[in-house]
């Protein structure tokens, strides 16, 4: 239960971090909060020769609202997602999901950037980035680029981040009064990985839904958008008939794997139950 020996670097800037990583020739890992990485090192699932600690790079911090976009530095901690008033107002899905992420002490250290870069398909924050239509700001030795969440999550633990690239910030379209958001998950015990979880963000135009984004976690190799269910809501009132049609549409959207504890059919059923609850709560809130 002890990590293999490694060398440790604490760069002060993004440029320095990229360089320190690059010269390691692929045998390095970035560490921020370390709440997933340190257990992986202790169990020797990973054994990099070099650890590049990015937790002290100021450019990776900060929460600000500009021109209708909320910018969250990658080092924003889970506890801030829970507590920050700007996040509560403009990225409410993060605030709603935060209490479900691990346990309080983990949330004090864990970072949004680390969670999203790891891209565990059963994690809450990657799926919420998808549900909110966030864009990831990524720095590399060639410069900076922005990748939308829809093309960021590629496969199990695989993202659009190239080796050595650094997730710098999230740019999230700021939610306003026309948006209605809900999150929930089904887990055997609080803090455990969810059997299924869902974030839903509706844009309302009067009583009708004008657009919808729905993302599920723990239903496959990546977080998954439920596009057929989204389409079934658009242009309609959020009544029980519409909700039933969205639940039915999930058969087109989700193809969950079979596992020993949760057969695929059960997971799809639970996803429908969960979506029904979330949409029901949003209909009542109207």
């Amino acid at each position, binding site marked *: *239960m*002890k990590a293999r020996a490694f*060398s440790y670097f604490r760069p002060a800037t993004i440029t320095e971090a990229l360089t320190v990583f690059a010269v390691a020739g692929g045998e390095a890992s970035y*560490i921020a909060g*370390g709440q997933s990485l*340190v257990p992986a090192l202790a169990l020797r699932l990973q054994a990099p020769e070099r650890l590049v600690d990015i937790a002290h790079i100021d450019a990776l911090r900060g929460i600000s609202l500009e021109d209708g976009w909320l910018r969250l530095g990658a080092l924003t901690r889970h506890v801030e997602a829970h507590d920050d008033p700007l996040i509560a107002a403009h990225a409410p899905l993060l605030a709603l999901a935060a209490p479900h992420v691990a346990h309080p002490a983990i949330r004090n250290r864990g970072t949004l950037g680390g969670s999203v870069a790891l891209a565990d398909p059963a994690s809450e924050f990657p799926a919420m980035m998808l549900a909110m239509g966030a864009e990831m700001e990524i720095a590399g030795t060639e410069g900076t680029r922005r990748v939308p969440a829809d093309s960021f999550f590629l496969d199990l633990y695989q993202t659009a981040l190239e080796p050595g690239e650094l997730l710098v910030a999230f740019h999230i379209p700021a939610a306003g009064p026309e948006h209605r958001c809900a999150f929930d998950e089904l887990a055997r015990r609080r*803090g455990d990985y969810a059997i299924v979880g869902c974030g839903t963000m509706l844009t309302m135009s009067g009583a009708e839904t004008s657009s919808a984004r729905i993302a599920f976690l723990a239903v496959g190799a990546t977080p998954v958008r439920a596009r057929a269910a989204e389409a079934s809501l658009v242009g309609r009132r959020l009544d029980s008939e519409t909700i039933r049609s969205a639940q039915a549409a999930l058969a087109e959207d989700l193809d969950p794997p079979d596992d020993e504890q949760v057969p695929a059919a059960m997971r799809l059923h639970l996803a429908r139950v969960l979506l029904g609850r979330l949409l029901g709560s949003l209909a009542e809130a109207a």
Partner: protein
Amino acid sequence: MTTLRPLSLMVNGETLTCFAEPRETLADLLRRGLELTGTHTGCEMGVCGACLVMLDGAPVHACLLFAVQAEGSAIETIEGLTAKTAIADLQCAFHDRNALQCGFCTPGMLVTAQALLARNPQPSRAEIRDALSGNYCRCTGYEAIVDAIETVARRRAAGEVAAAFAEEPA
């Protein structure tokens, strides 16, 4: 690669300079290097909560932090919290209510309880249980632990101050 790095930390109010291998966790440094063995190492993978310490005022797992990462931070262990009598009332309430059996989880429970009450002075039982969700008691004495924390919340709200906790003579 057993290179030692010099390290400056504030531990229980005292600035220390020491040396650590990068792979040494804060929990191991506290226990082995500084002989602060109240920080317990149970699972060493961030699950059991026995190694919680305050890092810059917030509870974190000392097993999920390499000591070198804590360079420049202020750490408070269960020994520090005890010495400044910040948790004397919690310790008395745990004692009175028999909220510890083997005692292995107790330091982590106390750190969690102290942080919970700082953030939410009058938590419901459900909120106490939720706050304790990352602290395992393998004696399964949870009911008494929740009782003790609830009692302290009530006493603090009433302005009661506890005397420093003293161990009974053997």
